[in-house]
Each structure stands twice: as structure tokens, then as C-alpha cells.
């Protein structure tokens, strides 16, 4: 095109709208939608109502991690909610916010208007990404604050039993809960970025909106399969699971750090791909919403490549097995039993014993020695033995373990009636759940140091 010199009419020069103004504009649009308002209200109120209702019920959500502790401490509420949110709430929230932030302009036919107003596809992208991130953060903060405040008010600021049976003081529990939610932000960002990518790449298609939820569901299914640990850790949603490691002593930081790092890499990669596709989109044809083969090749294939590369990078650290073996199970059960035995001793006002004095040990087999003692399954059986000072005979109890592929287990005990014979124990302050009757635990999937 040839440039021609000419006298200009008294007209303002072309100015791009700043990112700050674009961000405010996008935020106003998002908050004007009734759907977003309902989500904000729900995230700030529903968790509080959930915790309050559970506190009034006799039954507890024992299938969810920390669910069996919801009557014992207010810090269990935000953790139960985190478990639920990682599986369902956060993928759905990211779908509804980030998954729609670009597609809504296609649906309303407002792209040309927006481009003429802002004059920069790059700034539009940044404004939209930041505004959707802001709303998602408001929703997440609502989930944390609501469940925590309700738990503390309704149940109380009490000690929390960790996943290896050790007690966390209220202050430590608060720190660990906060850190767990903070770590869960990484996979939330990854899902939000996948939402942006879906919204850009798939345009008006409902799949654009649903992509984070679909990806999260697919990852959940994969996590329940006996896949290698390296692949498990390379999935961007693993930090929704690995925060469990914060509730053991010492903390299982390895899987958590890997999970957070992978999630952040996915967040950056998916956002970058969304940006790449968006700034190259042709807005001159209103019937073309950018979806098509290019979206598939430029959007999906690089992420598949990232998954392969991540798996290859993690494999030397994690190995290719299931991450669950006999030694790890025996150690985890013995340590947890010792911690919980001391807790029970305290509840029953018996003379305190130390872990060293107890010398607890576990001998675990899988499938009655019919199969190799490794990998997940509900056929793990552990014989736990311990010593009490001044008593010649060692005590023993049998625990049946259901270990899932993520390393989480539920241990169901059978032994002396004074130890784990009953569901409840009679304490000076009334009947309380017997910590040794049934307990949850967590096995670190990375090789033991």
C-alpha cells in the first residue's frame, strides 16, 4: 500500500486503549452477567452452609479426605472442600469464566466493536485473561474464606490429625490449609489457561466452554488408572491431589513441587498458545469464529507434546512403576499407627508413651501373598505390632488397606478391643471417634530417599 502525504483534518490520532482500561472494561462485562454474580455468591456462601450442615449431621463425608474429621476440627472443612473443588468445583468454575471469556464475543457478535474500540488484539487478550483470572481468584478466595470461617465458628479452632496420624496445632493447621489452597491455585491456573485456549480455538462451539471441565474429568479418570507415576505427575491437575503431602511429617514436598511446577508450565504454555491463535485470527469475516483445523494443530498438538516431554523429564526422578511398594506401605502404616496410638492414649488419659517406646512395626502383604506386594488395591493386609513399656507381650492388630493409585489409603482395623475394637472410645469428655478404628493415610509415590 502506498502512503500519501496529506493535510489532516482536526481529528484525534489513533490511540490504543491501555491494558488497565481494557481490564476494567472486561471486568465490568463479566460482573454484569447474572451467571458470574450467582457463582460469586455461591462460592462465598455455599461452603459455609455445607460445613454448618455437616456439623449438625451424625454422618460424615468419610469418602473425602479429612471428611471423618469434620466434627473434630474446623480446619477439616476447608480441606474437604479443597478435595471436592479440585475434582469438580474448580474445573467447572474455570470453564464458566475463562472458557467463555472469548467465546462470548463470538456469540454476541461484538468482536468488531471491541477491536475498533480497543485497537489492539494483544491488549484485548491481556485484558480478558487478567479479568477472568481476577474473577476466578475471587471465587477461590470465597471458597477458602467461607469454609474456613464457618468451620472455625461452628466447630472450633482445634488440632487437626495429619495423614500420618501426627497432630497439627491450630496454628500449623491454618498454615498448612492456606498453603494447600495456594498450591491448588497452580492447577486452577492451568485449567483457566486451557479454558482461554478452548474459548479462543473453538469459538462458539460449546466444547470451548466445556474444555477445562472435560480435561479435568479426563485427568481424574486417568489418575484412577494404573498409569506410571511419571505420567501421573506430568498431568497438570496432579497438584489437586499432591497437597495431601503437606499433612504428613515430614511433608511430602517432592510430588507437590513437581505438581505445582507442571501446572504452571501448562498454564504458561496454554496461555501462550491461546495468545498465538488469537492475534492471528482474521476478524474480517464475522461468520468465521477461528475454530478449525489450525486450532487443533496449533492448540492441541503442542499440549500433547508438552505432556510427553514432561513425562520424559519426570521419569528419571519418579521411575515408571506405580510408586507403591511393600516397604512404603509398611512404613506408612507403622508410623501412622504409632502417632494415632499416642493420640488415643491421650484421649483415654493413659500413661503417655513415645514412638520409640512403642516400636510399632507393620508386616504387609497383598492378595494373601498370591500377588507381588506392590501397586494399588483393596487387598492389602497389614499386621501391626507394638510394645508397651512394662508389658512383655507385643500387641498386634490387623488392618485391611484399600490403597488407590494416588497413594491414598483407608485402613480398617481389627484387634484388641482396648485399641481398635470399637468405633467410639469413652473419654472423660464423652464418646469420641476411635482414631485407630479406621484411618486415612497417604503414601508418597516418589522413590524413598
Amino acid at each position, binding site marked *: *500500500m*502506498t*502512503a*500519501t*502525504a*496529506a*493535510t*489532516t*483534518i*482536526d*481529528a*484525534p*490520532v*489513533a*490511540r490504543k*486503549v*491501555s491494558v488497565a*482500561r*481494557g481490564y*476494567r*472494561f472486561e471486568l*465490568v*462485562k463479566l460482573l*454484569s*452477567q*447474572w451467571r458470574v454474580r450467582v457463582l460469586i455468591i455461591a462460592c462465598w456462601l455455599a461452603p459455609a452452609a455445607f460445613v454448618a450442615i455437616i456439623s449438625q449431621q451424625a454422618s460424615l463425608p468419610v469418602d473425602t479426605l479429612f471428611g471423618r474429621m469434620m466434627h473434630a476440627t474446623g480446619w477439616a472443612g476447608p480441606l474437604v472442600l479443597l478435595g471436592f473443588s479440585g475434582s469438580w468445583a474448580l474445573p467447572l468454575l474455570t470453564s464458566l469464566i475463562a472458557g467463555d471469556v472469548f467465546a462470548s464475543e463470538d456469540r*454476541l*457478535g*461484538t*468482536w*468488531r*466493536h*471491541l*477491536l*475498533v*474500540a*480497543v*485497537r*489492539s*488484539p494483544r491488549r484485548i487478550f491481556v485484558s480478558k485473561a487478567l479479568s477472568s483470572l481476577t474473577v476466578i481468584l475471587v471465587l477461590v478466595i470465597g471458597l477458602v474464606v467461607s469454609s474456613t470461617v464457618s468451620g472455625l465458628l461452628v466447630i472450633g479452632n482445634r488440632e487437626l490429625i495429619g495423614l500420618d496420624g501426627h497432630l497439627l496445632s491450630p496454628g500449623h493447621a491454618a498454615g498448612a490449609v492456606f498453603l494447600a489452597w495456594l498450591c491448588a491455585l497452580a492447577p486452577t491456573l492451568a485449567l483457566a489457561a486451557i479454558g482461554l485456549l478452548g474459548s479462543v480455538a473453538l469459538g462458539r462451539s460449546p466444547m470451548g466452554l466445556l474444555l477445562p471441565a472435560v480435561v479435568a474429568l479426563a485427568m481424574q479418570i486417568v489418575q484412577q488408572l494404573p498409569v506410571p507415576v511419571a505420567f501421573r505427575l506430568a498431568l497438570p491437575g496432579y497438584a489437586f491431589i499432591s497437597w495431601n503431602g503437606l499433612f504428613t511429617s515430614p511433608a511430602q514436598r517432592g510430588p507437590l513441587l513437581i505438581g505445582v511446577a507442571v501446572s504452571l508450565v501448562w498454564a504458561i504454555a496454554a496461555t501462550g498458545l491461546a495468545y498465538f491463535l488469537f492475534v492471528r485470527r482474521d*476478524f*474480517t*469475516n*464475522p461468520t468465521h469464529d477461528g475454530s478449525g483445523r489450525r486450532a487443533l494443530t496449533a492448540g492441541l498438538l503442542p499440549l500433547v507434546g508438552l505432556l510427553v516431554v514432561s513425562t520424559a523429564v519426570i521419569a528419571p526422578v519418579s521411575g515408571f512403576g506405580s510408586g507403591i511398594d511393600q516397604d512404603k506401605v509398611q512404613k506408612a502404616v507403622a508410623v501412622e499407627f504409632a502417632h494415632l496410638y499416642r493420640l488415643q492414649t491421650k484421649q483415654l488419659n493413659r500413661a503417655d508413651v513415645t514412638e520409640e517406646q512403642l516400636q510399632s512395626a507393620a508386616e504387609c502383604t497383598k492378595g494373601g501373598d498370591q500377588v507381588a506386594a506392590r501397586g494399588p488395591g483393596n487387598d492389602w493386609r497389614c499386621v501391626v505390632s507394638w510394645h508397651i513399656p512394662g508389658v512383655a507381650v507385643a500387641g498386634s492388630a490387623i488392618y485391611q488397606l484399600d490403597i488407590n493409585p494416588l497413594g491414598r489409603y483407608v485402613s480398617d482395623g481389627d484387634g484388641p478391643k482396648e485399641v481398635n475394637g470399637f468405633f467410639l472410645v469413652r473419654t472423660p469428655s464423652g464418646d469420641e471417634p476411635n482414631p485407630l478404628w479406621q484411618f486415612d493415610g497417604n503414601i508418597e509415590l516418589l522413590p524413598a530417599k
Partner: protein
Amino acid sequence: MDTPPAVRARGITKYFGEVVALDGVDLDVAPGQIHGIVGPNGAGKTTLLGLLLGLAVADRGTLEILGTPVGRALAVSDGVAGFVDGPGLYPSMTAKQNLTALAALRGDPTQTMNIDEAIAQVGLTDVADDRVRGFSLGMRQRLGLAAALLTKPKLLILDEPSNGLDPAGKKHVYGVLTRLAADGTAVMLSSHRMDDVEQLCSEVTILSTGRVAFSGPISKLASEDSELDYRVLTSKPAAARRIARQTHGIRLRDDETVKDGVELLIISAPIPSLDEFVKQLVDDGIAVRELAPVVSPLEAAFLALTEQQETN
């Protein structure tokens, strides 16, 4: 110093893949002029307006907007406003919120019109606090115009602005456009409604398959030599018919019609013969109660182009 045209395009060509959307389009629009773009579907009207809004750049040719050469997308001056393919509005927001958000996007209050004033100009004051979700097409068009007015444009681009407008809405919109033009703003609008274009525009460009078939004052379309069909309603239809047969250059059309029980005459004639016919009617004491083209010169040109396109 001469005031440059609001739009000066020379040899503008735009391709979409292998499709030639615009082919060597020349265009001049002066400040204060309301310029109509008409043409059959697919003629390139929206593409041309999109180029003027800066949504795309031409593959060939030169384009100057408000005296400034335009070389890349989204680089047109802030003095250009408008919409193509309908106004961009957010249904979850009220009319006022839509405009407020847009004004906040611009940031500089000295560069934007008062929001209440813009809403009042298009006659939407009563529904300013209603959500756009419930607006009719016409109301959306008017609000889209108000949004464009916010930036105090020097060049206003409107794609089918009269779509869905009721008579009251049309009156408001036409009033606004006429006032803007009187204040020196150039207005370019596309429309399928020939009567709207004739009523509003001083000049028109007819596009056909991406090429300019005509560009200039509408009056030029009805040249002295061209023959148009006219509808004539007189006090004495039989006598008028006889005079029409005797007047040189006038052809009586077979199709007769009746209006309010009175016979209408349809004649085909160039302007000089029509003048002679009217003179004869008056000399014979016949009152001429209505004389109007069956189709306007613009519509005739448009139809001719459409037929030509279908033939091709």
C-alpha cells in the same frame, strides 16, 4: 489550506482467499457529506466499510482517512466511529452501562460526549436504565449510533443503520445524522432501503461484485436521457391518456391501476417528454394530483445492476 476529504480511496482491492471482495474501488467523501453505499448482497459494501473502520487493510491501493494514510489494521484515527454487521452491545448491561463502559474505555472525558446527551439524541432516554437484552433491533441500532456518537466522530461509518427502525426511531436517527453532517461530520452508510438513501444521502456509490458501478450525486442517476416509469393521477384519466398518446417520447404502459376509485396512468418517458406532457395537461385544464416515479432513479439503477448480476 484545503480541507482534505474525509475519505479518499484509490484503486482499493481486497481479497478473501481467491475471492475478490473489492476490485479497484475509488471513493471520495467530503466532510459534512452523507454518502450512501448500495449494492446487491455480496457487492462488497461491508468489506469497504470494514476497511474504513480499520478492521482490515486493503491488499492494493491507497486509502486516506481524515487526511491520514492508513497502512495497517486498527490504525485509523480516533475520529472514526461506527459499526458494521450491527452494533456491538452487551445484553447483560443497561443502555447506560454499555455507554459508560465504552466511555471509560476511552478514558479522556474531553474527547467523549456526555452519555445522557448521546442517549437523548437517539431517543432512548426512557429506556436508558433497561438491560439491552430486552431491546428491539431498532433500539439496538439507535444505541449503537449513540455509542458511535460518544467519540465525537469526524467520520461516522454505519452499516444498515435503519434496520428495524420504526418511524419514530428513523426520525431520531435521521435527525442526528443530518445534524452531524451539518456540523461537518462525514457520514457513510450502507442500506438496502433506497428510499432511506435517497432521503438522507447527497451522494451515493453503487457497488456491484466489488466494483464501483456509479459514484456521485443521486440526481445524476436520473439523467435527462434516461427513461423512467412514472405514476400519474389526474382529475380526467381518459383525457390524460389521450394526451399521453399524442405526446412525443411518451409510452403508455399496459399495466393500469386504480387508486381510491380513480384510474392511475403509468407512463414511460424521458424528462423532456414528461415536461411536455404536464404542460399539455395543464393547458387542457386537467389537474395533476400525483406524479411520481414508480421506482426511484436509485432503485432503478440498483435493480438494473441486480438483474445484470443475475444475468451474468
